[in-house]
Each structure stands twice: as structure tokens, then as C-alpha cells.
């Protein structure tokens, strides 16, 4: 029952805002719908925690601890982002960068986007999963080009084409999956249900699944932003409105990776390789490592703050992919933890960056100086967020990096030099660029009125807490999820 709320509310919100969105209180309505979604998600989560995995609508939806935790995360970040976007978009509008109609488009597609992601997470049908992923892309394309500047158009175009092509590959992978499945499960609806596939995964034809996984990995991997398929990501993040950058980084990438993981489980089953040394695991480790290194070196060259943090998202997604690739209880646990931490931290950073760029009137980092003098809260938010994302304890990102790196050192020592170099370069680059933005003298004006930094500090507070103390039920939940991923 909760499930229908979870999916229905944002959908309804989308339609409602499409009709009424240009009114004065659209932002509040937007936030309200997100809040309701969050509540519904909370109820759903509570139910899963006590009852364990459930099937809804005779197997069309399947919720286990893996995706319910992503549902909760998505709903939460969606809500905080809506809170943040309220004053942010208002300021944008005052600056005359946006019109009422575009705000209407923004608000409704925002809700649709959330709905699509929640659907992708909860559906049991690999085909629907694909459909909703594509839907999520389409919902955000027009948001990326919201400002109608040449740059934003270009970014949106690249986003559309590259992700479209990528997702097409994913569809082919899905077809191959079906192709292999219908022999065992017979044609018709059930053959694409993940639970059924999972049940018979040992009998699935290995060679077909290998091919299928390649297509799925390339397809969804494009959306995860794995190098060298990542090229749309920095543009889209840099040119779209900041709330969208936040949800793209914080949520969409997770959902795409979720899709990859669902398929990985099946492939591992078919090839009989559970513990990471299978073909799927190796591919993911390879992509992950490559992404980490490439991203780290690209970060070094950035001059645009949002672009830089976009690359840092690629880096962290690479790290998570690497962790999942390694497999095993600790690594998968760490991967899930890192997903959470990255979503919370990165969105918090984008919130802070958003206001920073607003007060500086530019996204160029040379233009942003000495935030801590004029807007202390923004300054501290950015500083702490950066420190957190760079994996400095006691923030939670460190906890997952600690587990990932030590495990890697134990199981795949060859990989650690790359990780060491990449982390070092990334740290030097990001921190070296953020420090002068936060510290030092400045000529920046204050923001017209109090920015909404509550979300920033809520997120950072959570990250800090999870670095020092993971509540037991959350931990169990992670453990079950890790077990599902073949830990």
C-alpha cells in the first residue's frame, strides 16, 4: 500500500505542478509533495525493516532491503533538495535568469523525475526498470537546458544523445536477457521479473548473459558516469540549475548503479561466480579504477566549481563501482555506505556551491573568494563538505573509503597504487581550489537574504554521525543488502 503512495504522490505532484506550477507558491507545493513522498517512503521502509522483502501487485514490484534503502535515500535527498531549491530558485528568478513558465516546467519535471527514479528502484521488471531510467533521463534533459544559454543547450544535447545511445545499449542487453530467460521461464510477462530470473539464474545461458551484461554495463554505466562513458556528466552538472546538479549527482547515478548491480547478481549467478573474481566483477573493478584515476586527473584542470565537483562525483562513483566489483561482505557493505555518504555529502556541497555562486555571480572559482568573511555559513558549509567528500574523518565518507582501501590492499594490492595516486591528486586539486574560495580576503557581496543552508548542515550532520556511529537497524539493513549483492 505504502508503495503506491511512494510512486503516486510524486506523479500526482508532477501533474499538479504542471497545471498550477506558475503560481506564487509552487516552490512550497513542490516541497510539500516531496515531504509527503518522504513520509510514504519512511512508512515503506519501516514495513520492510519489520517484515522483510515484499512483493506487490503479483510480482510487478519487489522491495528488498537493497532497494528500499535507496528509496529512502532518494526520497530524503529529494525532499532536502526541494527545500534548498525554494529560496535558490526564487533568487534565480529575481536575478531574471528564469521566467514563471520555466519554473513551472522545472517544478513539474522535478516531481516526474523523482517518480521515475522511485519506479526504477521499486519495479521488479527489468524492462520497466529500463523504461523508467529512460524516463528519468527525459525528465531532466529539459531541466539541464533550463537557462536556454548556448552552453546549457549544448550540455543538454550531449546529455540527451549520449545517455540515449547508452540506454539503447541497455535495452539491447535487456532483450538479450529476455532472450535467455524465456527459454526457461517461457515467454510472457514473468520472464523479465527479476525475482523469477534470480530464482533460475543458475540455469540461464552463460554466453548470452555475458553479452547481455556487456550491453547493460555500457548502457547503465553511461548514466553512472563511468570513464570513458562519462563525458555528458560534467557538462550537464555544470550547466543545469544547481538543485538539478544535486539530484543528478546524489540520486540518478545511484539508481543507474543499482540497475547495474541487479544485472550483476544475475550474471554472477549464471556464471557461478559470486565473489567478485568473476567476469562481471572484474569489468566493474576495471571501470571503477579507470574512472577514479581519470576523474582525479581531470579535477586538477577545472576552473568551474560545479564542473569540478561533477568530476569528483565520477571519482566517487568509480570508487563505489570498484568496491562492488571486489564483492565480499566488507566491500559490498563499504560500497553501499559510500553510496549513501556520497549522495548526502555531494548534494550538500552543491547546495553550498549554489549559494556561493549566486553571491559571487559566477561559477568560476577565481571569482569566489573569502566566503567565510561575507557568508560564514556558506563558507563553513563548503569547507566542511569538501573535507567530508575528500574522505577526511570523522566524516562518514572516510569510513567507507577506509573499508574499501584496506580491503583492496588485502585482496587486490595491484590496484592500491592507482587509488593512492588518484586520491592524492584529487585531494590536492580540490582542496587547493576550495581553500582560497573559503578563506582569505574578499570583495564578495552578502546574499540578498538568508540562504537555506539547513539542508547542508542536516546532511553534513548525518554524514558526521554515520562516520562515528551507524545505528544498528541501519547496519543490519546494509548487511542484508550486502548479502543480496553476493557478499
Amino acid at each position: 500500500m505504502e508503495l503506491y503512495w511512494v510512486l503516486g504522490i510524486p506523479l500526482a505532484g508532477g501533474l499538479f505542478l504542471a497545471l498550477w506550477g506558475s503560481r506564487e507558491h509552487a516552490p512550497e507545493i513542490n516541497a510539500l509533495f516531496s515531504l509527503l513522498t518522504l513520509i510514504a517512503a519512511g512508512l515503506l521502509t519501516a514495513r520492510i525493516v519489520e517484515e522483510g522483502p515484499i512483493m506487490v501487485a503479483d510480482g510487478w514490484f519487489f522491495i528488498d532491503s537493497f532497494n528500499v534503502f535507496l528509496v529512502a535515500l532518494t526520497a530524503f535527498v529529494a525532499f532536502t533538495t526541494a527545500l534548498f531549491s525554494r529560496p535558490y530558485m526564487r533568487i534565480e528568478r529575481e536575478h531574471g535568469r528564469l521566467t514563471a513558465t520555466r519554473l513551472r516546467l522545472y517544478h513539474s519535471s522535478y516531481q516526474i523525475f523523482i517518480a521515475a527514479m522511485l519506479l526504477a528502484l521499486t519495479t521488479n521488471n527489468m524492462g520497466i526498470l529500463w523504461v523508467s531510467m529512460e524516463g528519468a533521463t527525459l525528465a531532466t534533459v529539459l531541466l539541464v537546458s533550463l537557462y536556454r544559454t548556448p552552453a546549457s543547450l549544448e550540455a543538454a544535447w550531449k546529455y540527451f544523445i549520449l545517455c540515449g545511445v547508452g540506454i539503447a545499449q541497455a535495452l539491447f542487453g535487456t532483450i538479450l536477457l529476455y532472450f535467455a530467460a524465456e527459454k526457461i521461464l517461457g515467454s510472457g510477462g514473468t520472464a523479465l521479473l527479476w525475482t523469477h530470473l534470480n530464482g533460475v539464474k543458475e540455469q540461464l545461458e552463460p554466453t548470452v548473459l555475458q553479452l547481455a551484461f556487456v550491453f547493460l554495463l555500457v548502457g547503465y554505466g553511461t548514466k553512472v558516469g563511468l570513464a570513458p562513458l562519462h563525458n555528458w556528466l560534467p557538462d550537464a552538472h555544470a550547466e543545469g540549475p544547481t538543485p538539478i546538479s544535486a539530484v543528478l549527482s546524489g540520486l540518478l547515478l545511484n539508481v543507474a548503479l543499482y540497475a547495474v548491480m541487479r544485472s550483476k547478481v544475475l550474471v554472477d549467478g549464471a556464471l557461478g561466480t559470486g565473489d567478485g573474481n568473476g567476469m562481471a566483477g572484474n569489468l566493474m573493478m576495471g571501470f571503477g579504477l579507470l574512472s577514479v584515476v581519470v576523474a582525479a586527473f581531470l579535477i586538477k584542470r577545472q576552473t568551474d566549481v560545479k564542473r569540478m565537483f561533477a568530476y569528483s562525483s565520477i571519482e566517487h562513483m568509480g570508487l563505489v563501482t570498484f568496491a562492488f566489483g571486489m564483492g565480499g561482505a566488507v566491500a559490498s557493505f563499504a560500497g553501499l555506505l559510500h553510496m549513501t555518504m556520497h549522495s548526502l555529502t555531494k548534494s550538500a556541497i552543491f547546495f553550498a556551491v549554489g549559494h556561493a555562486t549566486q553571491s559571487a555571480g559566477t561559477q568560476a572559482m577565481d571569482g569566489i573568494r573569502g566566503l567565510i568573511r561575507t557568508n560564514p555559513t556558506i563558507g563553513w558549509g563548503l569547507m566542511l563538505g569538501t573535507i567530508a567528500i575528500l574522505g577526511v574523518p570523522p566524516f562518514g565518507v572516510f569510513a567507507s573509503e577506509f573499508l574499501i582501501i584496506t580491503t583492496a590492499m588485502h585482496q587486490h594490492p595491484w590496484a592500491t597504487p592507482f587509488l593512492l595516486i588518484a586520491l592524492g591528486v584529487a585531494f590536492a586539486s580540490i582542496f587547493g581550489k576550495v581553500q582560497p574560495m573559503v578563506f582569505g580576503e574578499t570583495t564578495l557581496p552578502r546574499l540578498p537574504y538568508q540562504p537555506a543552508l539547513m539542508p547542508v548542515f542536516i546532511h553534513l550532520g548525518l554524514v558526521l554521525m554515520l562516520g562515528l556511529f551507524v545505528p544498528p537497524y541501519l547496519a543490519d539493513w546494509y548487511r542484508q543488502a550486502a548479502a543480496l549483492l553476493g557478499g
Partner: protein
Amino acid sequence: MAIVFPSGFPTVFPPDSTPVEFAWAGVLFWLALAAAAPFLRRARGLLALAPALCALGALAMAAIGLAGLLAPASAIVLPFGLPDLPFHLRLDALSGLFLLLLGAAGFGVSLYATGYFRHMETGALAMVMLWYPLFLAGMAMVILADDAYAFMVAWEVMALASYFLVTTDHAIPDIRRAGFLYLLIAHIGAVALLLAFGVLQGGAVGEMEAYTFAAMRDAEQAPFWASVAFLLALFGFGAKAGLVPMHVWLPEAHPAAPSPVSALMSGVMLKTAIYGLLRVSFDLLNVQPGWWGTLALALGLVTALYGVIFAAVQSDMKRLLAWSSIENIGIIVAGFGLTLIFHADGKGALAALTLTALLYHALNHAFFKGLLFAGAGAVLHATGERRMGFLGGMIRFMPWTAWLTLIGALAIAGLPPLNGFVSEWLLLQAFLLTPGLSQPYLNMVIPVAAAAVALAAALAAYVMVKFFGVVFLGQPRAPIPGQLHEAGWPERLGMLWLAAGCVLLGLFPPQVIALLAPVTRLLTNQTLVNDAGGAAGWLLLAPVSSERASYAPLIFLLVVLVVLLLVFVWVRRVHHGRARRADPWDCGFPEQDARMQDSAEGFGQPIRQIFDGFMRVERETPDPFDPHPQYRGDSRDKLWLLLYQPIADLAARLSALVGRLQHGRIQWYLIYSFVTLIFLLVFVTR
């Protein structure tokens, strides 16, 4: 396993509570102070009191450390941390000793800070008082941690807190640069440590429990991987301790911080790295090949000489002290290497001797370096001037500071009967005992290495004469801004405490060594016997045998004092005490003025001349018509150019290369995914 506090907070101590619980309580106290600080902006008075509270906590911590040193090891598990890996804390003799060090030095410094921070503007003070107790707590936790995660968290919190303290006045670009360099190298070092722990994790790998030190202790380690772990640890801890060539951040960061913080960083934080080295290589690793020791010894000696040479040519007093910290760390690490050598060679007693020496030196350095930074800080506070070229004659304006600093200077210069001499004496004794070793080449090389230590010690004297002479003696080299005020009472008390430490540690070596015994027993299963024989035992120090070598600072001091008094009395009785004041003579040269004294550069000139090869000198020769010419010769180390610049360039080149990937043409991006797809298809179906 002792009891776990409800929610980790000790409401009231049960009668059977162990030292480690008290230690945890102390940490919580500091954390509470830190948490309270931002809310005290309104209540300036309370805020100004915070350092004093820190000092109290430190004093308690010292007592707890002492207890932990003498009591059997105790441990607790905190109710938080990672899900299956809650924070493990353990207080054994080794931790106890370093906790004692932290507490004792921290007490003096914090007392000093009470006065030093008094004049700060409220907002800044609130920030400082947020990070300062956090810094103390972080260091304490590093020493107490008993699992890899807790250790790393504490380690980085320590680094982070100190970073924010270093960048207290971040308006100055140099300070920002220093802070950045510091945090960067600290972080890279931390990642190295992470990898080291990754190698060390033992027991059931893949279980969280594998990260506890207990599991690491009884994991069996392949020699190769053990060596990998050791090298990683040496790199990581060396980066924190300022071991050449990872030292570049130290001379930048330590001077940049407010003086009490510099004192803590040099005096205590560097020791946590030494603690880590000892913990990992003697406690966690259970094999120690000899070549580790040789490596550490070489590194240590190079560091010692490098540091002291550069200290001699500095012209900024805090930078000079920072370089001298590098020297002392070098000496300590050399002792560490020697310990490893003896240990690997099965010479337990000798290992105990060197271990004692290095622990002793660590203890000493905490005191005199804290004292010196405090003194320098007082001068800086009074004159607002760090460049020695503009100072001088401070002893007339601030006698307290001057005389107390003199004690520190003499101590660090390794002069009897103060504490610096004792540890160096022990170390040299150890060097002289190497002929027992099995490898002949070591026998030959090591006494020569002793020469390097001797050289470093002698140069240290040079450095300190320069430091004290230029800053405190002679005439002010530049007009003094306003009227100079002597350091206030809290500062004086803090410095008094530290100075007392220098003197007492110098005068009672037998007792101190007895105090160190549990640690040496813990790490080498051996203790240093003081074979001074019964009655003389309490004043005579004879580490190996009284035949071999002995030293009794008390007698020493007594004789000097007696002779001194006798001579004085005799001169006054037999002759007279008449004296009259006049202008200085200086060979009758009339136009005598202050600018004719040696400047800091001038005093360092001979050293610069001799060791020209090591350094890159940037000279500013004044223009001939300048009425008040100022010569500036800034000697920086070449290592920056030779080692770090190339790395930076390489990274830049690589990123330029990678940057080509992202050149904007969508067709190319499509080609990437296309090629990737084809490649993978070929790859899986090959």
C-alpha cells in the same frame, strides 16, 4: 574487559574503573570544551577561561598517563564506531608514557595559552577554542586507539584540528599555503597508513574484527608483506614526523600557527608519529628484519643533520625552531633504527638502552621545544616581529622570558646538567656498544654514525647560541614598537612549568629511567638495569655497568655550584666587588651602533658557506645608496625543487594528457562508447 559506560559517558566512576576509563573521561572533557566554545561567543569571560580548563584536563591526563604507565594494561570498547567495529581503546605502558608526555607538556602549553590568547578578538578566540581542545583530544585518542579505524579517525581529527589552528589568520597568503601543504602531506601520509593497516589486518579477513590491533598482533605475517607494511608505516608516520624528505611542510606550518599551537605541534604532535612507529613495528608487527633498522638509522641521521643545518641558516625565529624540531625527530628516529638493529640481532639489553634513550629524548623534546616556542611566542607577542634581523636585547625588556628561554636553549643544545644531554649521552653510549653486533660492517659504520649525532649535537649548540644571542642579547636591531611588555603571569607560569621539566628530567635520570622501564619491558622484554650499586643508585646513572660509563648530574651540578660560590666569595672577600658602568669599548670604535651586530643571516653565514651544496640561497643585496641597507639571504632547501616540483609537473602533464579526452565533439564521445562496447564484446567472447 572493563565495563562499557551507558552511552559512553561516565556519569560516576565505579570503584573498579580502570585508567583507560579515566583517560576516556578526560577526552570527553576536552570534547565537551570544544563543543561548548562556539556557544560562548556571548560570554567572553568564560571563553577566556577555556584554555585554563584545557590545562586542567591536561594535568589530569598526565596523572592518568602515569597510572597507565605503572598499572597493567586496561581496555574498553566504546558503544560507537563502525557497526561491527566499535572503537577499541587500550591503555598500556607505551600509551601511558605518551599520554604522560601529552599531559605534562600540554599542561604547560595550555597554561601559557591562557595568557597568550587573552588578547584575541572574540570570534577568532571562539574558533581557536573550538579546535584547540579538539586537537588535544585527537592526540589523546591516537595514543589510546586500539583498532585501525579508531586510530585513523583520531589521527585525521588531530591533523584537521591542527590545520584549522594553523590557518587561524588565513588572511595571509603564506599561511594559507602552509596550511594547504600541511593538510595535503598529512592526508597522503594517512592514506599510506591506511594501506599499512590494510596489509596488517589479520584474523578472519573480510570480518570487521580483522581491524582490531589484537587481531593484527596474532595474525601471522609473511616477511615480504611485513616489510611492505613497515615501509608504508615509515612513510606515513615519517610524513607526520617531518622525516626527510617528507619534511617540507613542517618549517612552513609550525611557524604559521599561533605560538601555543606551534609548541603543541612540535612538542607533542610529532611524538604521536613516533608513538605510531613504535606501536606498529614493535607491537603489531611480529617480525623485525635488521635492514629496517639500518634504513631507519640512515634516514634519522640524514634528517638530524639536514634539520640542524637548515636551522642554523634561518632568519625567522619560529622557522628556526621548526627546523630544529626536524633535527630532534631525526635523532629520535636514529635511536629507533638502532633499537631495531639491536632487537633484530637479539641484543635485548642494548635494544632496551636505545629505546630508553629515544623515549627519553622524546620526553625531553616535548618540554624544551614547548618552552622555546613559548619564549619565541612571548617575544612575537610583545614585538609583533618574527624576523630575528629586527630583534635583539630582549633580555633587558622581558627578563623572565629570557632566562626561562635560556634554560630551554641550553637544554636543547645538549648541555649538562640539563635534560637534553642525558638522552644524547645514552644514545652515544648505545653507539659505543655496537661492537657486539654480528654483522661486521654494522660494527664499523655505526660508531661513525655516532659522529653524525655528535655533529648534530654540536651544531645544535651553534643554532641555540644564534637563537638566544640574536633575539635576547645585544642591542635591538630595529626601533622597538611602543613599549615592550613582559609576558603576563599565566605565560610565565606555563614557561616555568616547562623549564622545571627540563631541569628535573636533567637532574634525576635514574628515576626517569625507572619510569621508562615498563615500556622497554613491553616492547623488548628487557629493562635497562641501572648498575650504580645500592646507595649511589638514586643519583648515579650507569646504564650498562658502572665500570663502563656513568653520569651523575646532581654531583655535577653540586660541584659547579660549590666552586662557583667559593670563587665568588673568594673574589669578593680577598679582593672587592667594585664596578662602574661605561659605554661599551669595542676597541674604541666611536660610531658604534646596533646594526653592526651580526644579523641572523650573518650568524648563519659560515654554515651556509660550508653546506652551500644543500641549499638554494635567495639573496637580496641592498642598493649601495640605501641609508639603512638590509641584507636578506633566505636559504631554502633544494629538495623542494629536486623532488616535489617534478612530481607536481608530472601530475600537471598527466592531467593535460587526460584533459584531451574531454574536447567537446560529441562524435568523439560517441566513438568512445562505441569502441568501449566493441572492445568489451571482443573481450568477453574471446
